[in-house]
């Protein structure tokens, strides 16, 4: 297993390098101009100087190489220095990946935005899974019952209605009409005591539920399908013939087998959560990573977009590996050697 993991990690390096180059090339091909959003009164020669100061006069391969140096070498060194307090080389003049819009290091921006995304989007994923698994299990066990029909309807709705619709619907119902929850997520709010914790919970409920419903719809279908597959298997009859309680037959024998593909799907979904929350973050004004990416794209902030997109790519590659490893752990028939 360890050997396999190391081998996969080694293969990940060229894969990620290639991905980073493709992202860079696509961004470079896109007709965008970082000075486009500046006031029209700025004369063309000044605009040209601004572009030159951003390094845009250099050839694409050189810019890519510089980004690589900044991202793969300078930034990790910087993080290392911050953690350990050491000084390695000329840390003052080391070039970092700088956002063209805010003139601050991209990594700092990401660190700033991370907690909101993790709280809202991460929580919604956990919640979605917690809702989906029981629904999937029960729907499969009571196939075609009214509960199953309802579950199917629920996941159909959750899956086909986009989050920008449910989000606005939630705002209309719960914020405007019922006045239960705030419609805007206040990032500056700090949790200091129970009262402020309650405020935090209240402002998290709507964005979290919108995303959780969407995630639950998907995962509950996977869970149901996997349970149905396994309930038909001969070993289930064997378990019953041994006198095992029905509850144990389903929740131990069948569930353990059914979880194998579902866990993989859950692991593969984690990186999508980061990228897929863009819309919900916009609606509820949660200034997380998704929102950062949108702002970056609008302002043609290439270093920011490049870095964020690449981090999403890293997450996807990483969670693919995690999914494969989980498969090997859960299914004894699979051995990676």
């Amino acid at each position, binding site marked *: 297993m360890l050997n396999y993991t190391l081998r996969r990690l080694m293969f990940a390096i060229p894969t990620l390098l290639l991905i980073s180059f493709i992202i860079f090339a696509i961004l470079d091909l896109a007709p965008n101009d970082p000075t486009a959003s500046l006031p029209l009164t700025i004369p063309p020669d000044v605009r040209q100087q601004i572009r030159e100061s951003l390094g845009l006069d250099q050839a694409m391969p050189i810019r890519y190489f510089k980004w690589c140096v900044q991202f793969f070498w300078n930034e990790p060194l910087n993080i290392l220095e911050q953690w350990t307090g050491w000084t390695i080389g000329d840390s003052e003049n080391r070039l970092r990946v700088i956002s063209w819009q805010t003139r601050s290091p991209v990594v700092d921006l990401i660190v700033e935005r991370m907690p909101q995304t993790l709280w809202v989007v991460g929580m919604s994923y956990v919640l979605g899974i917690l809702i989906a698994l029981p629904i999937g299990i029960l729907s499969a066990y009571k196939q075609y019952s009214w509960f199953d029909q309802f579950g199917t309807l629920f996941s159909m709705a959750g899956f086909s209605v986009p989050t920008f619709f449910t989000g606005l619907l939630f705002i209309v119902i719960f914020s405007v009409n019922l006045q239960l929850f705030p419609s805007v997520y206040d990032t500056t709010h700090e949790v200091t005591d129970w009262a402020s914790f309650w405020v935090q919970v209240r402002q998290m409920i709507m964005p979290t539920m919108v995303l959780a419903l969407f995630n639950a719809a998907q995962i509950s279908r996977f869970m149901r399908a996997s349970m149905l597959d396994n309930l038909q*298997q*001969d*070993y289930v*009859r064997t*378990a019953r*013939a*041994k006198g*095992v309680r029905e509850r144990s037959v389903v929740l131990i024998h069948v569930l*353990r087998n059914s979880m194998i593909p579902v866990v993989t799907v859950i692991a593969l979904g984690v990186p999508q959560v980061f990228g897929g929350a863009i819309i919900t973050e916009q609606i509820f004004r949660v200034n997380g990573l998704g929102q950062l990416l949108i702002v970056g794209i609008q302002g043609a902030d290439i270093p920011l977009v490049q870095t964020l997109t690449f981090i999403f790519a890293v997450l996807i590659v990483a969670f693919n590996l995690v999914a494969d490893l989980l498969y090997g752990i*859960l299914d004894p028939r699979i051995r990676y050697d």
Partner: protein
Amino acid sequence: MPDGSEPILDVHDLKTIFRTRDGEVHAVNSVSFSIRPGELLGVVGESGSGKSVTMMSLMGLLPSPPAEVVRGDIRYQGHDVRAMSEAQLRKLRGGDIGFVFQDPMTSLNPVFTVGYQLVEPLRIHLKLSKRAASVRAAELLALVGIPDAAKRLGDFPHQFSGGMRQRVMIAIALACDPKVLIADEPTTALDVTIQAQIIELIKDLRQKLGMAIVWITHDLGVIAEIADRVLVMYGGQIVEHAPVRELFRNPQHPYTRALLETIPRVDGARDARLRSISGQPPSLAAHPASCPFAARCPHAFERCLAENPARRLVSPGHDVACFWDFATGGAHHG
């Protein structure tokens, strides 16, 4: 081995139907039989004749819906099984009555160790401690002839060969010293040498443990070798029932005769072609109003199409459900 003792399992007029979207399937129709302690009852018939469904019906192992036992009296040691609660039934399953299924490749749970699956019934029925259960589990594996038993408890099913897995299945079925073992085509999925080993093993265990065995198969050769009494099933009914030697020497049902004729002889002259029974097994869409074999029967006459024959006694312990009398070569009167 039949003696005068009370039957341990007594089934009377069992009827099981499947309610499917395309209508009902009458899989088991008025099946009655009994088995005494220590006896080996063979059940033969082609695929779809209701052999397995009958035995699964007994202990409520059929998925319901679609299956439903609509009629019948099932008595285990005099207790009415159909009136039992789910908890009482669970005590019978795996405790007093062990099951071995056809396909050892899929009948074991792939993600649990063999030890776990073997310990499970021991913990449930005998309430053994973890330690005692695993000691007993190792004994059981050794009993069914798995070398290095204690070590192999930690292995997963896929680490065993087909024959070894069927031995594990047998060990699980025998875990709690059952009084009845129901073996549903236990050797069908195995190749012939392994099949012979498993048959030897069951014969041997029967001597040691003295349990009653119901052996379901479509292989008459296996039946001849091990059974005391034989039930021949066709179209969800028992068409003939006789002690094994009597059945092979003096078959009374045209279907039994046809089945025996399909077996090629090892000695003597052989036919140019293998014999088969022409025609198709009956559809089971309704309760049978005629003899289910009539359409394929060389001796069929009007009555066979109008009436379903009841089982009649031919000689002590031998009955047949047929209007034709081979002794006189004509229709039986009565």
